[in-house]
């Protein structure tokens, strides 16, 4: 785990319904659980996530930051 901030660790550990017990039909078949995108909808958590990334990535070396997807699964792409 690449998270150092204990507040973010606790928030992710206690976030309700982070995983949902629901079958999800993907392009590869069924999986029985999904991940709640709600966790990144909370500004406080999003701020903590962003802070962790600034520790991992030297953004001064990046010209453009492009949002790609909320999920990597093409079935769930937004």
């Amino acid at each position, binding site marked *: 785990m690449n998270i150092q901030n204990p507040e973010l660790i606790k928030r992710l550990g206690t976030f309700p319904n982070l995983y949902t017990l629901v079958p999800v039909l993907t392009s590869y*078949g069924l999986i029985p659980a999904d991940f709640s995108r709600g966790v990144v909808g909370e500004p406080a958590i999003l701020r903590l996530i962003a802070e962790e990334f600034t520790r991992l990535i030297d953004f001064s070396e990046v010209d453009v930051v492009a949002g790609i997807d909320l999920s990597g699964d093409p079935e769930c792409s937004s």
Partner: protein
Amino acid sequence: MAAAKTKHDRALKLEELGAKVTGVAVLIYGEYHVDRFKEKYQDVFDSQAWFDKSGIDLSYLVTWKELADLQLKHGTIEKDFNEIVREALHWDAWEDDGEGYLTKMVRCFNNHNVPMPDYVTDYYISKGIDLGKL
């Protein structure tokens, strides 16, 4: 990161626009395992191989399993749910009941009073598996 498939597609589109993708940052790194069905999931292996050779840096904060274990540690989810979540991204675990995961799934759904949707029951019947008999 869905086995790099979508990232591959997006990286190609950005390249068409003249941009070079040097890094990908994801909150959760999904560790996918499809070993038993390499032929079926060949595109996944191809994409992963592309990503490995691409030189693109991957930054992630937590893996899918680590997050599931974090939720278990804090008492947010129970052990049976944790086991299902930990294996959720192993597509081959849900192809049949060879490793007993379908049985675990049915029990977990029952324990949490989550009704099994008809399309799931029908999906497995089409594969010759009657979930009601597991």
